[in-house]
């Protein structure tokens, strides 16, 4: 096996991983960085983000407003000190992106333009047409090429971390093109492998979003925090789950039911007005909108389609010119995939899984409880999203915490001696035996695709928009069963070069671990908060018992152990989450009581 000696290994070449790599390179050019990604970095799923990235910009806006929106949006399950750091860094980091060439959309006088986004009080979402993630990812990737100390391991699949002397000392990867393994020695590691939305059936995520890094850390004893909080995005393409960005609504799109009625006004988000008002109606938070869809469906007011019930996203009144300018990608998606011209007809949409709020438990410095291990981006739970993420906060998170994770990992790497190579190699060889064994094994009879489908279906059944104890229990049982059956999985492909079936099997194993953490965390949270909504007697938020982070601990060959950790509250006491007119009234009252 080949060994590569690095100082910091970064696993994941998406927005967070690239930002971390640049941060290490800028902090200390003498540090050798290994940037590992199972796809070429610009294929990472950050590329798919459409709407934008949040950061206070307008003179009428304040860091405090962004803070309040985020904390209330997260149903007070946020680490408030971390949110405070976050909102302060957002504008700085987005300006940094501007300096690196990100083609932000501009106002006529040349300043960066901002747009409205769900749950945000004031326009503060920076955007690059409706391809914000694409432009941010390519800007970061192309900028990273400037730094000679970043050695990329493109299309290298990470199969394990190497832990010795109680700290992370490297990673083991498969070079996909040859099927050969490499040990990357490092004194610190950053995991930035993105989310895990693919454990669900209908989702907005790319094929690579399989929760690998979460599972890697989890198996080494790092808890996965708040995993029950999985965000459903209200406006997705039926069948494929492809996303129609929230910016469609930010630009003024309507959501209507089968009677052409803007039904959100029936769910405390009104009044219905012809133009978008922040934090009301279509610009309410995602969890609320997805829940309203569910109720409409119960009431039989949705429209039947070949891929289940839908409502209509109506953009017609915006006119072709504005749609082509502001939402060009959406226009093309609707035309190509649905054969719908959004200037002439409404787009059928339904909710689909979009984002994992939870992830690898890290503190505000992105450090996990395992020394030397850092995490950033969607795979991590740094504490800013709580029970529900606000749209456009996560692209900013990639920059703010990608940078922080990189710097902290660099400092840690400099503070510890290099590892004992022979010992690390021995561990890596054991990993090699294990993963090569999967391919070599004969006699299995379970198809990967079958197991994957069953997993995705049971997750949708049990951990959907609304949850019930017995279906969640069924999901947990089903996942246990699938983990057993996985041992019998069959890999047809025995070759070394580009054996993607082998990688799919490894990913499936990661996914099953992550799915278990989600399902068990959900079952155990007996309240409703943010994206976790129950209909079985726990419809209300319960701050007395559950203003806590759930923490799922890996148990080999068994169900995860769930315990809870405290939530850091600084200046915002838990209150009612109200939107629309009710929200404005509540805010006025809050402000009045402060004086």
């Amino acid at each position, binding site marked *: 096996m080949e060994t590569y000696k690095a100082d910091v290994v970064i696993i994941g070449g998406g927005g967070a991983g690239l930002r971390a790599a640049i941060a290490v390179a800028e902090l200390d050019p003498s540090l050798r960085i290994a940037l590992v990604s199972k796809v070429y970095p610009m294929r990472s799923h950050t590329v798919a983000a459409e709407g934008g990235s949040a950061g206070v910009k307008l003179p009428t806006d304040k860091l405090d407003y962004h803070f309040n929106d985020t904390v209330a949006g997260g149903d007070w399950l946020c680490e408030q000190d971390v949110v405070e750091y976050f909102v302060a860094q957002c504008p700085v980091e987005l300006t940094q992106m501007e300096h690196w060439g990100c083609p932000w959309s501009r106002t006529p006088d040349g300043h960066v333009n901002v747009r409205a986004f769900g749950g945000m009080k004031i326009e503060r979402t920076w955007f690059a047409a409706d391809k914000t993630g694409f432009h941010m990812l390519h800007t970061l990737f192309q900028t990273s090429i400037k730094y000679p100390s970043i050695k990329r391991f493109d299309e290298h699949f990470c199969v394990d971390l190497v832990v010795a002397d109680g700290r992370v000392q490297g990673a083991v990867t498969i070079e996909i093109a040859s099927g*050969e393994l490499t040990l990357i020695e490092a004194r610190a590691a950053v995991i930035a492998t993105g989310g895990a939305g693919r454990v669900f059936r209908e989702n907005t995520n790319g094929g690579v979003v399989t929760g690998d890094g979460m599972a890697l850390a989890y198996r080494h004893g790092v808890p996965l925090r708040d995993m029950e909080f999985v965000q459903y995005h209200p406006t997705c393409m039926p069948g494929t789950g492809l996303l129609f960005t929230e910016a469609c609504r930010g630009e003024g799109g309507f959501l209507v039911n089968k009677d052409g009625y803007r039904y959100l006004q029936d769910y405390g988000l009104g009044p219905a007005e012809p133009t978008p008002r922040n934090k009301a109606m279509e610009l309410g938070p995602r969890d609320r909108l997805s829940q309203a869809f569910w109720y409409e469906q119960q009431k039989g007011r949705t429209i039947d389609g070949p891929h289940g019930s839908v409502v209509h996203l109506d953009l017609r009144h915006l006119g072709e010119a504005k749609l082509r300018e502001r939402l060009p990608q959406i226009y093309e998606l609707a035309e190509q995939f649905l054969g719908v011209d959004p200037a002439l007809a409404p787009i059928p949409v339904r909710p689909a899984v979009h984002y994992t709020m939870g992830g690898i438990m890290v503190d505000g410095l992105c450090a996990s409880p395992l020394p030397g291990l850092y995490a950033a981006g969607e795979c991590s739970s740094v504490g800013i999203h709580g029970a529900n993420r606000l749209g456009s906060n996560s692209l900013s998170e990639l920059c703010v915490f990608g940078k922080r994770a990189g710097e902290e990992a660099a400092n840690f790497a400099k503070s510890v001696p290099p590892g004992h190579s022979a010992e690390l190699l021995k561990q890596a060889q054991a990993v090699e035996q294990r993963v090569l064994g999967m391919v070599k094994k004969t006699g299995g009879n379970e198809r990967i695709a079958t197991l994957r489908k069953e997993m995705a279906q049971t997750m949708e059944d049990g951990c959907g928009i609304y949850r019930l104890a017995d279906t969640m229990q069924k999901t947990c049982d089903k996942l246990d069963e699938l983990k057993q059956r996985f041992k019998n999985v069959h890999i047809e492909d025995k*070759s070394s070069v580009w054996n993607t079936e082998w990688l799919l099997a490894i990913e499936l194993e990661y996914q099953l671990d992550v799915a278990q953490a989600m399902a068990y965390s959900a079952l155990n949270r007996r309240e409703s908060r943010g994206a976790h909504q129950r209909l079985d007697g726990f419809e209300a938020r319960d701050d007395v018992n559950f203003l806590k982070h759930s923490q799922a601990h890996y148990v080999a060959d068994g169900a995860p152990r769930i315990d809870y950790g405290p939530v850091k509250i600084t200046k915002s006491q838990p209150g009612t989450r109200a939107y629309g007119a009710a929200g404005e009234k509540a805010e006025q009252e809050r402000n009045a009581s402060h004086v």
Partner: protein
Amino acid sequence: MSKRRPYVRPMDGWWRKNPYFVEYMIHEGTAFFVAAYAAVLLVGLVRLSQGEAAWNGWLHSLTSPWYVLFHLAALLAITYHTYTWFKIMPRTMPPVVVGGERLPAWAITGTGLAVAAAAGIGLLAFVWGMAR
């Protein structure tokens, strides 16, 4: 040792495999007519420099059916060249912004063709004028 063995496909006959390329080869082929026509003119020029008899001989030879046939073909080919030349023009020029809007490709091609038509008519008028 790595088992990779990337396979490089041959390029033989690529221009036959896609109608777009066939069309490309045809428009590249117009160059033969441009060259041949230039050669005809060159001979004429040399004849001109050799005196009136030589020139008239050249003029006369142009009336042979072979020459006429050749010139008919050349006219077609070079007209096609003109068309393709302006058709790819928008792809080869910096963007032209008129009144804040980028000029669309068809406008550039159209302008080019119009200019070519004007140039041709101008030339004809000039020769006609010279003859008077």
